[in-house]
């Protein structure tokens, strides 16, 4: 049996932060879970899905991959309103998609524990922005908990359900990448019993948000805020450690950096550390007592100066004369963090243990000596190693077909998924991207504003997530563009989760398949063609017809993700090799498609037959027909 399902407590297990959240939910008696996957949150839903699939007799909760975060939250809200303990997970930008239901769900509240996981991503490891979702708690008035590591993530998840039931309001669990993706020993407690079916009890005057109801519900929310604030004042997650006349206020993973820094600097008897684990509502009285008890305070928080502004406001309100420091106001790092680690507390990028130690030492005037950095002048320059589309990835074939015909002439709005890697050379078919689904709608805007040829790219999962409404908009408003749906039959980027367009029979799921072509025709698109991208000539013919069509046209480029295919429906295709006697060194195979199975050795293009999966794209590109399947 999977360790996460152990009924008893007691032992410690090495868990990823995200696995710890799952265990916390299971210990709390989770009955219902929804999500849209997204790094760094994905292992939470993926673990819930895997546990249920591998242990159908033991796992009682309902779980679904929803089509997007708004849908996930609304579905979860329905379950919670029906009295089930519910978890809904998303990455930080997913909360923007879910913001509409979230704002008014805060009014309506919940009838059982409901926890919303929101995973922020300082430094943007795989994300399009690094927004600070602590603002959301302030915007919608829901309590927020922020763990600093895996063990606390488990504990807080469990507590979040209790807090939610105590206040009858959803609770936001806010993590950052370093919490989601760090492992540490996590002590287990007993699993709770699960109730998975209840009756919906009608109460329209509390649950139907017409203005007359909402006016009362807003007052309800404000009263809950006051109650939550009283809880926050006494919360065991708002801790003060150490003693002395210097103060540090911190949260999340920064609390680890502060703890290590204080120990490394030998300052445990000089510095008092206030860690905000329940970060909204603020424990105002406790904070005021804290800042009154010290001479100066340093606020250590990644991203926005949220605690800093709050503490400054409290100091003003209560007339506390204390020196407060935090972000270097107005200062912007000269270089991005992938060039140089951040040198001071700025609003951009994650912090590091060294930065926190140096900043604490500098601010309080503690003598310290850091290990010297190596002088690396004259180092051989490591070549860039950006992620790349896999060997045999069908996206490469689709991109190649289109770039051959339209090159730099067409504008290519793109979207979020593996295929965003089409930005990189030699493909370079990506011109505009802001969020999930933006390819479709922005294509219409660009086409109407410029009259230029516009070919937009979106993945199948992203299309179901938020491409549908944009496509209807394009049809309705007579936009003129071609949408290419890169349909690889899965949600590849985040780990091969299913979505409505996936025929899940092969993976043994009982979900209903919603095929793309009839759906798109039903949306009113007149020109829809499905192509097989590894058939290069036929694909190009179909693409040309679509691009020539006046109005909205759709190409569905259909071919399974090779990584996914290897798992669910392996087929053996012969790898290809270059016949050196036929090869004349045009290097089209190398220069045009940059397949990771190809390399150059002493001026000769070669194929790594271990990596080649036999997609035959290069063979169709070679002007000498020198690329053929390996014999035998």
């Amino acid at each position, binding site marked *: 049996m999977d360790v996460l399902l152990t009924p008893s407590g007691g032992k*410690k297990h*090495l868990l*990823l932060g995200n696995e710890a959240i799952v265990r916390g939910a299971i210990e709390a008696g989770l009955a219902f879970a929804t999500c849209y996957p997204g*790094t*760094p949150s994905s292992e939470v839903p993926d673990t819930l899905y895997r546990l249920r699939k591998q242990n159908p007799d033991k796992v009682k909760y309902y779980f679904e991959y929803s089509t997007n975060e708004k849908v996930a939250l609304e579905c979860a809200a329905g379950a919670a309103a029906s009295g089930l303990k519910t978890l809904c997970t998303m990455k930080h930008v997913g909360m923007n998609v879910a913001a509409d239901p979230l704002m008014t769900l805060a009014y309506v509240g919940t009838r059982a524990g409901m926890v919303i996981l929101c995973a922020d991503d300082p430094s943007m*490891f*795989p994300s399009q922005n690094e927004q600070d979702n602590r603002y959301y708690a302030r915007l919608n008035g829901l309590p927020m908990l922020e763990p*600093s*590591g895996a063990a606390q993530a488990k504990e807080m998840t469990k507590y979040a359900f209790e807090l939610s039931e105590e206040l009858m309001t959803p609770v936001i669990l806010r993590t950052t990448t*370093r919490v989601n*993706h*760090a*492992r*540490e*020993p996590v002590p287990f407690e007993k699993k709770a019993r699960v109730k998975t079916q209840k009756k919906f009890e009608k109460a329209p005057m509390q649950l139907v948000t017409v203005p007359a109801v909402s006016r009362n519900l807003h007052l309800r929310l404000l009263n809950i805020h006051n109650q939550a604030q009283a809880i926050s004042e006494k919360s065991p997650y708002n801790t003060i450690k150490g003693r002395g006349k210097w103060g540090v206020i911190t949260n999340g*993973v920064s609390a*680890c*950096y502060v*703890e*290590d820094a204080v*120990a490394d600097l030998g300052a445990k008897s000089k510095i008092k550390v206030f860690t905000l684990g329940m970060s909204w509502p603020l424990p105002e009285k406790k904070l005021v007592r804290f800042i009154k008890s010290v001479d100066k305070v340093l606020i250590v928080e990644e991203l926005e100066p949220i605690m800093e502004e709050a503490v400054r406001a409290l100091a003003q309100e209560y007339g506390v004369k204390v020196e407060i420091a935090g972000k270097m106001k107005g200062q912007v790092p000269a270089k991005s963090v992938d060039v140089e*680690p951040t040198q001071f507390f700025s609003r951009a990028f994650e912090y*590091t*243990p*060294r*930065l926190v130690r140096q900043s604490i030492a500098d601010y309080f005037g503690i003598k310290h000596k*850091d*290990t*010297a*950095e*190596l*002088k*690396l002048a*004259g*180092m*051989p*320059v*490591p*070549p*860039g*190693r*950006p*992620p*790349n*589309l*896999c060997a045999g990835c069908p996206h490469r074939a689709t991109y190649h077909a289109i770039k051959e015909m339209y090159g730099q002439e067409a504008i290519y709005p793109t979207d979020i998924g*593996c295929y965003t*890697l089409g930005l990189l*050379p*030699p493909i370079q078919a990506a011109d505009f991207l802001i969020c999930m689904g933006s390819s479709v709608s922005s294509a219409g805007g660009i086409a109407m504003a410029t009259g230029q040829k516009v070919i937009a790219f979106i993945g199948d999962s992203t299309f179901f997530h938020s491409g549908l409404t944009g496509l209807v908009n394009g049809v309705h408003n007579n936009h003129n563009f071609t949408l290419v749906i890169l349909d690889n039959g899965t949600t590849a*980027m985040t780990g091969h989760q299913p979505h409505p367009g996936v025929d899940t029979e092969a993976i043994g799921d009982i979900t209903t398949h919603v095929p793309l072509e009839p759906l798109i025709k039903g949306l009113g698109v007149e020109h829809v063609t499905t192509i097989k991208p590894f058939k290069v000539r036929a694909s190009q013919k179909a693409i040309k017809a679509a691009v020539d069509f006046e109005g909205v046209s759709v190409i569905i480029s259909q071919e399974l993700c090779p*990584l996914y295919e290897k798992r669910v429906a392996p087929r053996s295709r012969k790898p290809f090799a270059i016949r050196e006697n036929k090869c004349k060194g045009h290097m089209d195979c*190398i*220069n045009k498609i*940059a*397949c*990771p199975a*190809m*390399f*150059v050795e002493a001026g000769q293009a070669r194929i790594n037959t271990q990596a080649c999966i036999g997609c035959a794209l290069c063979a169709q590109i070679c002007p000498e027909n020198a690329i053929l399947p390996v014999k035998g």
Partner: protein
Amino acid sequence: MSTQRIVFVGVGGQGNLLASNLLGQAALEAGEDVVVSEIHGMAQRGGVVESAVILGEATSPIVSVAEADVLVSFEPVEALRLLNKANKDTLVITNTRPLPPFTVAIGLAPYPESEDSVAFIKDKLDKVVAIDGQGLAEEAKNPLSLNMVMLGALFAAADLPIPVKTMKKVIRAKTKKRFAASNIKAFDLGYKAAA
């Protein structure tokens, strides 16, 4: 015990995350405090993969510039890429077998010779172990066992508070059964090469 910060770097597919996770498991079984951190994301798509195992009292899950005690690199130029994590006392263990990225194949950047990379590191640091880890993995008849070779080399070259016996027990228990024997062989070959 003082803190020991071990950074692993490699290329997607080389098994870096498994290595750090197994080391973390072994630390837990040996009763050591441990934190393991990982950068996921595009690991399967040939990008750089970095992880860290922090043994001892520290609670921070990541290792800052100049603060790694050990840097284990699965690929020679990746050792260079993360060399800023090292200081003059850092132990660097690197595989010498190159795995050039596609940027090299399409002529966007040259690939430094493996010997030059190792020579540069040796010029900067006293404690450097450079082995053909991929060759040893192949000798163990399991080309995917480079991560086990590198773990073996780590146990030989670094002074870890975890018994080799515990590490091997974890490898046997947590890796696929049909690879268990070749994984242990690879670990031993790595250990021998770095001892």
